C-alpha cells in the first residue's frame, strides 16, 4: 500500500513539472530532453514481449515514434524533431547495424542552425537497463570551418560538427531504446515551406507500434494524407490547448524488402505531409504550397476548383525576347511548324548555346566571365517555369492556341492525391492541327516527348480565355502512353571469328527511338557531337569567336587539352557501358555516331560500335567450339525462383521493345549445329519474345524481338510476364556448336 501511494505522488509531481516547463516550449537542454522522453510519462517504461511470428527477423522495432513540433519566435522558426526507436536486436547483423551512430550539429550563420542530442538505453534480456553516457562516449569529428560564399559576401561561415558514437555494451538479444532529438532554427520573415515527408509505413524491419505526432502553433499549416490503407491522422488537441496536435498510429506492420518494378508510395500503405509557416494573408498567398483556408484545418487534397483558383494567371505571358522575334521575322511557317521551330530554337537559344561557356567556366579554361558574351539573363531558363513562360508568350503572340497541363510523377500517385505543390509537373499542350505536348527544355528534349514518369497519369488541363488573360476552365485529362513499337531499340550485329577461333569481331549498328532514344542520347552524345550542327542551323557563333586574339589562343589551347582528355574518358565510359550490358569484357572498342536525330522523337538515333570479344562466349570442345550465341542479345532480366511469387502490381518505366539482328559468318571449315533451339515464341497480353534463326550459305542470321506492351501490369498478369521474361532469359543461355568439317 505504501508503495502505491508513493507512486501516485511521484507521478503527480512530474506532470506538473512537465506542464510548466514544456507547456509552450520544447526542451533545449540535455537533461530536460531526457526527462521529456524517458521521464515518468514514458509509456514504454515496461517493454512488451515481441511476437513469436517475428522471432526469425534480424530485428524487431518495438516502438517507432516520431514527433515534430513547430514553433515560431520573432525572427525564426524553432522546430523540434524527435525520433525514438525501441528495437530488439535478434542477431549480429542487427547489433552491427545499431552499434555506431553519427549525428550532426551545424550552423550556417543567419540561415539555419541545427543542434542534435542523443540518448541511448540498452535493455538486457534479464530486464537490466543500462543507460549510455552519450556526452562521455561521443567523439567530435569536426572538419575545419568551410567558407561558404553567398554572392560576393564571404562572411557566412558554416561550422559543422559530426559526432560519432560507438555504442558500448551492445549484444545480440538486447533491446536498444534510443532517441535523436534535434532543434532546428530557420531564419524567416513571414513564410517558410518545410521539406515534405513522403514515406511508406513499412520499413526494413517489422514494427509493433508506430506513432507519429505533429504539434504546431498558429500560422503553421499542415498538409497531411494517408494512402493505400495507412491509418488517418487524428486530431488529439485537448480542449483549451493552445497548439494544435495530431497523431497517426499503426500496429503490427510487416517489413517490406526492395523489389524490382515497384512504386512503394503507390503500392504500400503510406503517408505524406508538409508543414508550412505563413504569417498573414499576404504571406499566405506567396507561400509555395497549397494551404488550407485556416491553420486548424488539415489539408488532405487539392480539388480541381482550387487548382483553377490558384492558377488563374499561372505564368507570365508577355516575354518574347528580341532575338527570338528577329529570328522568326521573315520565316514562312505554318502555325504548327512555327510552334515546333520555336521550341527547338529556344532549346538552343536559352540552353545549348551556353554549353561551351559553361565548360570554359567549370573546367577553368581561363576565360574571364564567359557568360558575358551572351545576352545577360538567358541562362536562367534552366528553371522550368521560365521556359514555360517564354514559350507560352511566344505562342500567345503568334496566336497559336495552347493550354497548361499539370500532373504528377507516376510514383507519387494520381492527381486526386495531390498534396504537395512542388510535386506538380508542368507541360504545355499546343493545340495546332495536330496537337502536341511541350515539356520544359533540356539538352535533348523533343517536341511531343513526355517524360515516361508522367505518361498515362491523370492531369489537369488549364484552358485560357480567348485573350489569354486568365485561365478560365479546368478539365481532368489523361496523358497519353507511348507505344512499345515507338520506344524501340534495334541492334544489327555482324559477327566474324578470328582464324584460330580464339576471338570474335563485332560490328554493331544501333538504332534507338522514343524513350530508348532519350536515354541513349544522354549517355552517348556529347556537346562535341551535336553543338556544331545546332550552331549551323541557328547561325550562332562558337564561343571562341567572342574572344580576342590573345584570349582566343589561350582558350584554344586549354580547350583542346580538355577535349582530348574528355573524349578519351568518354570512350572508356562507353566501352564500360557495353561491357555492363553484356556482362563480359570487350577489347579494341570504337564508337561512332551516325545520326544525332534530336528533332523528332520517333526518328532513329544511330551509332555504330566496333569491338572484339576475346575471353568469353567461345568454349573449346575437342576440335569443335561451343559458341554462347544467346549472350549476344545482352544480359536479360533474370527472375530468380524466390521472386516468381509476387503480391505487388508491376510498375515499369514505359512500354518498350528491343530488336536484334545478328549475322554470324561461319568460319571456313566449320558447320553449325543447334540452331533449332534458337527459335522461341511467346506472345501474350503483357508482351512477348520471339526469336528466329536461319542459315543461308555461310551466314547464320538470328532475329529476336522482345517487347513490353505496357508501363503497368496488374499483379494478375505477373505470370504472363514471366512467360516471355523466361523465354528471353533462356534464349540468352543458348549455345550453338561450330563443328569442324
Amino acid at each position, binding site marked *: 500500500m505504501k508503495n502505491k501511494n508513493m507512486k501516485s505522488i511521484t507521478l503527480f509531481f512530474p506532470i506538473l513539472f512537465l506542464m510548466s516547463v514544456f507547456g509552450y516550449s520544447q526542451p533545449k537542454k540535455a537533461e530536460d530532453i531526457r526527462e521529456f522522453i524517458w521521464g515518468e510519462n514514458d509509456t514504454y517504461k515496461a517493454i512488451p514481449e515481441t511476437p513469436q511470428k517475428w522471432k526469425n527477423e*534480424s530485428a524487431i522495432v518495438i516502438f517507432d515514434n516520431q514527433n515534430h513540433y513547430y514553433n515560431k519566435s520573432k525572427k525564426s522558426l524553432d522546430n523540434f524533431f524527435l525520433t525514438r526507436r525501441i528495437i530488439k536486436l535478434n542477431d549480429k547483423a542487427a*547489433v552491427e547495424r545499431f552499434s555506431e551512430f553519427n549525428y550532426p550539429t551545424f550552423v550556417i550563420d543567419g540561415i539555419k542552425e541545427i543542434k542534435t542530442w542523443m540518448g541511448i538505453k540498452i535493455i538486457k534480456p534479464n530486464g537490466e537497463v543500462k543507460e549510455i553516457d552519450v556526452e562521455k562516449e561521443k567523439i567530435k569529428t569536426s*572538419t575545419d570551418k568551410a567558407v561558404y560564399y553567398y554572392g560576393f559576401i564571404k562572411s557566412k561561415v558554416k561550422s559543422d560538427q559530426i559526432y560519432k558514437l560507438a555504442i*558500448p555494451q551492445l549484444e545480440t538479444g538486447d533491446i536498444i531504446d534510443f532517441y535523436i532529438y534535434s532543434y532546428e532554427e530557420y531564419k524567416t520573415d513571414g513564410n517558410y515551406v518545410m521539406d515534405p515527408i513522403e514515406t511508406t509505413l513499412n520499413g526494413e524491419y517489422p514494427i509493433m507500434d508506430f506513432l507519429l505526432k505533429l504539434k504546431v502553433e498558429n500560422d503553421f499549416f499542415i498538409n497531411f494524407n494517408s494512402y493505400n490503407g495507412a491509418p488517418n491522422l487524428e486530431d488529439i488537441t485537448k480542449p483549451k490547448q493552445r497548439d494544435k496536435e495530431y497523431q497517426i498510429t499503426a500496429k503490427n506492420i510487416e517489413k517490406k524488402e526492395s523489389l524490382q518494378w515497384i512504386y512503394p508510395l503507390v503500392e504500400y500503405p503510406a503517408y505524406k505531409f508538409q508543414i508550412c509557416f505563413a504569417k498573414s494573408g499576404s504571406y499566405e498567398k506567396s507561400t509555395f504550397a497549397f494551404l488550407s483556408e485556416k491553420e486548424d484545418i488539415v489539408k488532405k487534397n487539392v480539388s480541381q476548383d482550387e487548382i483553377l483558383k490558384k492558377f488563374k494567371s499561372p505564368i507570365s505571358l508577355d516575354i518574347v525576347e528580341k532575338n527570338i522575334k528577329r529570328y522568326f521575322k521573315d520565316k514562312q511557317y505554318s502555325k504548327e511548324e512555327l510552334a515546333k521551330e520555336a521550341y527547338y530554337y529556344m532549346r538552343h537559344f536559352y540552353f545549348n548555346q551556353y554549353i561551351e561557356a559553361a565548360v570554359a567556366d567549370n573546367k577553368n579554361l581561363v576565360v574571364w566571365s564567359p557568360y558575358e558574351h551572351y545576352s545577360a539573363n538567358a541562362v536562367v531558363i534552366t528553371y522550368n517555369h521560365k521556359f514555360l513562360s517564354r514559350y507560352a508568350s511566344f505562342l500567345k503572340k503568334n496566336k497559336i492556341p495552347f493550354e497548361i497541363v499539370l500532373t504528377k510523377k507516376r510514383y507519387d500517385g494520381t492527381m486526386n492525391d495531390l498534396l504537395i505543390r512542388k510535386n506538380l509537373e508542368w507541360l504545355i499542350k499546343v493545340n495546332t492541327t495536330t496537337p502536341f505536348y511541350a515539356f520544359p527544355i533540356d539538352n535533348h528534349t523533343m517536341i511531343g516527348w513526355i517524360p515516361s514518369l508522367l505518361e498515362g497519369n491523370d492531369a489537369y488541363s488549364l484552358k485560357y480565355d480567348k485573350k489569354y488573360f486568365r485561365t478560365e476552365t479546368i478539365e481532368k485529362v489523361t496523358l497519353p502512353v507511348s507505344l512499345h513499337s515507338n520506344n524501340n531499340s534495334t541492334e544489327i550485329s555482324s559477327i566474324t571469328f578470328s582464324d584460330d577461333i580464339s576471338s570474335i569481331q563485332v560490328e554493331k549498328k544501333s538504332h534507338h527511338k522514343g524513350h530508348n532514344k532519350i536515354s541513349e542520347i544522354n549517355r552517348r552524345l556529347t556537346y562535341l557531337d551535336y553543338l556544331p550542327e545546332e550552331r549551323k542551323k541557328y547561325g550562332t557563333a562558337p564561343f571562341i569567336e567572342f574572344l580576342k586574339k590573345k584570349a582566343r589562343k589561350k582558350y584554344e589551347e586549354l580547350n583542346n587539352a580538355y577535349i582530348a582528355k574528355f573524349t578519351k574518358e568518354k570512350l572508356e565510359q562507353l566501352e564500360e557501358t557495353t561491357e555492363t550490358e553484356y556482362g563480359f569484357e570487350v577489347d579494341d572498342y570504337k564508337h561512332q555516331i551516325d545520326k544525332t536525330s534530336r528533332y523528332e522523337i520517333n526518328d532513329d538515333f544511330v551509332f555504330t560500335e566496333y569491338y572484339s570479344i576475346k*575471353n568469353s562466349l567461345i568454349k*573449346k*570442345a*575437342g576440335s569443335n567450339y561451343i559458341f554462347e550465341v544467346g549472350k549476344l542479345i545482352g544480359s536479360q532480366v533474370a527472375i530468380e525462383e524466390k521472386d516468381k511469387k509476387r503480391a505487388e502490381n508491376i510498375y515499369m518505366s514505359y512500354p518498350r521493345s528491343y530488336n536484334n539482328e545478328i549475322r554470324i559468318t561461319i568460319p571456313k571449315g566449320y558447320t553449325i549445329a543447334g540452331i533449332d533451339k534458337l527459335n522461341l515464341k511467346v506472345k501474350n497480353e503483357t508482351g512477348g519474345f520471339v526469336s528466329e534463326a536461319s542459315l543461308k550459305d555461310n551466314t547464320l542470321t538470328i532475329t529476336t524481338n522482345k517487347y513490353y506492351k505496357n508501363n503497368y501490369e496488374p499483379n494478375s498478369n505477373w505470370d504472363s510476364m514471366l512467360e516471355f521474361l523466361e523465354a528471353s532469359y533462356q534464349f540468352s543461355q543458348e549455345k550453338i556448336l561450330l563443328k569442324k568439317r
Partner: protein
Amino acid sequence: MGKIFTLTIFFIIGCSVYSQKKNNPLSTDIQLSKTLKESNKDDDIAIIQSIEEISFGYDKKNKNVTVTQKIKQDYINLESRSSIPVFVFYDDQSSIKKIKAKSLKGEFGNLYFKDEYYSNNELFHTDARVKWTNLNFPLQGSKYHFSYEKKYNDIKYFVSSYLDDKYPITKRKITIAIPDWLNIEIKEINFNKLSISKTKDYDEKEKITTYTYSLDNIGSVADKENTPGPTHYRPHLLFLAKSHNKNEEEITLLNNTSDLYNWYRSLVEQINDTPEAFKEKTLSLLKDCKTDEEKIKAIYYWVQDNIRYIAFEDGIAGFKPDEAQNVYKKKYGDCKGMANLTKQMLKIAGFDARLTWIGTKHIAYDYSLPTIAVDNHMICTVINGDKKYYLDSTEKYNSLDYNAERIQNKQVLIENGDEFILDKIPLHKSIENLEIFEGNLKINNEQLIGEVSRKYKGESKSHFLYSINNLKTDRREQVLERYIKGDDKNVLISNIQVTDITDRDGDLSLTYEIDQKNAVSAFDNELYVDIDYYKEYKSLDLEKRKIDYILPYKVFEKTHIDLEIPLGYTIKELPTDLNIKNNDFEISFQYKKEGNKIKYSKSIHFSNAKISKGQIESWRSFHKNVKEQYQKQIILSKG
C-alpha cells in the same frame, strides 16, 4: 584605406595580366612531359624533383628531441589534362606548417588546403587529420610546386622516409642533418638494385653531419590490390633514434629492444585494471570446463564473440591498452583492449597470461629494430607449462589451435616483468586450411543434378563463418544460397544443410542438392558438359603485376566431381590433364573414367599464401592454360 584599395586593384590587375600572358608550359616542359610519358606509360603525373630535408631540434620544455621534415616537390603533367589530390597527414604528435601548392607559373596563386578529420573505414576514430588540395593541370607539361614542413614533437614517432612515391620521380634527394649530440642510426631498406648515391659531410662549425641520398628515375609505386605491406618492397630509410646528450648527459631514446619494451611497459603500468568487474562473468564461463584447454577456450571464444572490434588510434591511446573493465563493460575495444581483457580474464582463471606485441605480416621488421614501426598489433599469450597459446581475440571464429595467417611465423614480444620474452608464432601448413568440394552429379535433359558436399577447415572455415554469422538471420537461407550460386538464375539449390555455424573447433560442412540448367549442351547425338562451375582464379591474370600477389591465407582447395555417364552414351572426349608445380603454387586438373563415371579432380594449392614476384611470369603463362582449361568441355556421344 585608400592605399589598401589601390593596392588591391593593382594586385588583381597584375594577376590577370600575368595569367593571360604566362601560363603556357614551356616547349621544353612539353618535351620533358612527352619523354617522361614514354617511360611511364601508365602514369598521368610525374614528380620531376623531390627534395626532403630532415633536421633535428630539442624541445627544452618537454625534453623531447624534435624532427623537422621539409618537403619540396615539383609535379609535371604527362597527359593532355589531369587533376590529382595532394595530401599530408598529421596527428596529435605532429604538425604541418608552411604548406603551399602553386602552379609553377603562379597563375592560380597559392591553393587553399582543406584541413579535415581523417576518416577511414577500418578505424572508428583516429587523431589523424589530413590537409589536402587538388592540383589541376590544364595542359600537357603544366607544372606545380608543392611544399610543406612537418614537425614531429617527439622523435619516437618519426620512423621512416620512402624514396619512391605514387608517381614516378625523376630526381629524388633526401638530406639528413644529424647534430653531434644525437645518436641516430639510418637503416637502408629495400635498396637492392637501385643505384643510390650516398654522401656524408661534416660541418665543423655547426657540428652537424649531413647524409645525402640521391637517386634518379624511380618508377611509381605499384598501387594494386593484394600487395604486401610497403616495408616489404618499397625502398626506404628507417630511422632508429638511439640516444642524445643535448644537455651533456646521455639520455637513452630507443637504443635497443629493452628500451622499446620499457616504454610499452611504462604505458601498460599506467592501466588500472580492476578484474573484479568481470570476475563473476569469468567464473561463470569456466563453470563446466574440466581441462585447462577448455578453460582457455571458453574465455578466448567469449571475447571473440562478445567484444566488437572497434579501432581507436588516438594519441597515446594508439599504444596504451584500454582498461579491461572498460572493454568488458563497453563490449567493444581495439586489439590492445581486447588482448588486455583476455589476459585479465585468463588471470582470474588462474593462468599465466601476458600481453604480447606483434608486427603482423604487413610489416617486414622484427624486434631487432628498436622502433615503434616494428609492430602494429597486440595479442595475449598464455604460458601453460611448456606450451604457449597465442590468443588473437580480434580474429573472429578462430579456433584455439590455429593462428591466423597474418600473425603466423611472426616474432612476438611477450611481457615478462622487467624483462621480455622474444618468440615466434608457429607456422601452420596449408593442409590445415583445406577446403573440399565433392559433387555427385548426373545429367538430366540438359541439366546437371545431384548432391554437393563441401568441407572447410582452418582459415577457409573462419572466413566462411565470419561472413555467414554477420548476416541477417531472416536472410541466412538466402545468403547461403547466394554464397553457393551468386545471382545465377540457372542454378537451383535445395535442402541446404550446414553444421553448427557457431562451432569453430570442429570441421564445417555444407551439403545441398543442386539443379543446374544450361550446364549441358546437346547437339546432334552429343552432349557437351561444362563440369566446373566456379572456375576459381579464372580472371587473375596478373598482367601488369610487378610485386608479390598476396592471398588472404594459404589456400588449399580440392574439388572432386563424379559425373555419371548417362545410359547409352560413351565418352568421346575428355579434356587433357593440366598440372603445374613450383614453390608458390601447385595446381592440377585431372579427368578419368572409372566404371560409368567420369572423375574430375582439381586441386589448387598456394602453399605460401602468395604468388611471389619471381613466380609472376610463371603464373601468367600458366594462367593462359587455366583459362583455356576452364573453357574445355567433356563430350559424350550416343551409341
